[in-house]
């Protein structure tokens, strides 16, 4: 083999390696389609079209000329699921909806609105813009994920009564905190902020306005529906719910 030829082969091999590495990456990128949900086409005063309110009062409203989604805690009553809960549960879980219903009804402390379009979220990023308006007991805005047919879920939330981000889990009707962010971040009411949860295999991270708040190992597989989450009498607005999956 001549020297130039060896050099050519060496270069070709290296280039080929890079190309062969790039191919799966490009297919990953091609499959990681970001889906962004806003409320510009929804009717003000009505429930959102792309989200199913299961607990609490969720209504599209106008904010500075833009349609956003409001969860109105003034109307939340302890233990009262959203109207038409059974039909909504059937719409997303079909024949499996009974167990979901039982769990939701038993502990309707957490207003949730489930995204209709995302069938299953596993790895990737979910972000949402939120604005806290009020709430005496709680002033929450959160991202719901890993929602199972039996009503179990995970949620990452910011609460303006505690000024922190927390990762919660809800299993068999019992809620417990998985990880509390150690940084206190007082946010002003009436201002827009961004919450993001990032799932990569065995790691769950949560960001508030781009700053890492939670970094938590997670050994169980995450696979379920996603949506929005608050607590009790929170009044919060949401916009730009964005899901970017990472193909496995």
């Amino acid at each position, binding site marked *: 083999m001549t020297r130039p030829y060896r050099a050519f082969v060496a270069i070709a091999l290296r280039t080929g390696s890079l190309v062969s590495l790039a191919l799966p990456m490009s297919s990953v990128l091609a499959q990681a389609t970001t889906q962004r949900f806003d409320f510009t086409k929804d009717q003000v005063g009505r429930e959102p079209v792309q989200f199913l309110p299961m607990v609490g009062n969720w209504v599209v409203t106008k904010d500075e000329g833009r349609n956003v989604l409001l969860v109105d805690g*003034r109307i939340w009553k302890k233990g009262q699921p959203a109207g038409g809960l059974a039909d909504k549960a059937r719409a997303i879980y079909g024949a499996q909806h009974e167990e979901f219903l039982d769990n939701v009804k038993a502990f309707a*402390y957490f207003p949730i609105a489930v995204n209709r379009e995302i069938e299953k979220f596993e790895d990737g990023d979910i972000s949402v813009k939120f604005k806290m*308006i009020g709430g005496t007991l709680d002033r929450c805005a959160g991202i719901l994920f890993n929602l199972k047919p039996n009503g179990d879920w995970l949620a990452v939330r910011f609460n303006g*009564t505690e000024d922190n981000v927390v990762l919660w889990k809800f299993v068999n009707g019992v809620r417990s905190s998985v990880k509390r962010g150690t940084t206190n971040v007082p946010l002003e*009411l009436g201002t827009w902020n961004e919450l993001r949860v990032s799932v990569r295999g065995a790691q769950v991270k949560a960001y508030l306005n781009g700053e890492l708040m939670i970094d938590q190992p997670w050994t169980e597989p995450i696979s379920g529906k996603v949506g929005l989450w608050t607590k009790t009498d929170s009044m919060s607005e949401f916009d730009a719910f964005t899901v970017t999956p990472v193909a496995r």
Partner: protein
Amino acid sequence: MTMRIEEFRSRAMVGALAMAGLLVLLLPSLVAAQGRTAPRARSGSCQVDTTAEWYRSQRAFYSDRTERWSNDSLRNVLLTAAGYDANAVFAPELGWRLDFGVGGGGVDEGVVTLLRDMARKRQWPTRSLVGVAGVHAAWLIAQHDSALTVTAMHRMMEAGPGESSPAEVAILEDARRVQIGRGQIHGTQFRRNGAALQLSGHLEDSAHVDMRREGAWLPPYSVSACLAKAALTR
């Protein structure tokens, strides 16, 4: 020489236009002067609407005679320390405080210590434990101790719906926020500025203050501000 009618009308019109022009020039200054004091209550808005949702919610909470509680002795200790009569006629929380300051002592130190201990264990006198009157008495006592005021607020929030009055939580939270230099969120804390009324500190997200007040069983901001202003002259 008598003035002709037409000339009189003409001069009167010029005079009226001049007055109107003067008012337009002076109006911004008048408005700015108002802005340096508390937002002005609209005429007639000192009226407390007893049919409003906030009033009815408070009344239902404080007047519930069917309620049961589990700790009678703690309830009695709190009522005695607060000097609060459980059979007192319902008097609504009207959502304003003038020159309000927490702390200052003046209540049974043993009861304050008892409440501090409960708070340390993440407990608090809730409606289930001591009834509505006991909850109110604990709230009154907590305000005599600055540190206890803060923990009382958090424990009342954590206790969950129905275990305390959101109006009382709102008052504590605004007082606390003023204390630490944050904006109020319900606009309940006022102070004197000479003969004028001023909001203590500032109000966060004023556009939604009445929405928050409604959720906290408080009257609209304009009503509370009017009542606070009326108190200045007493």
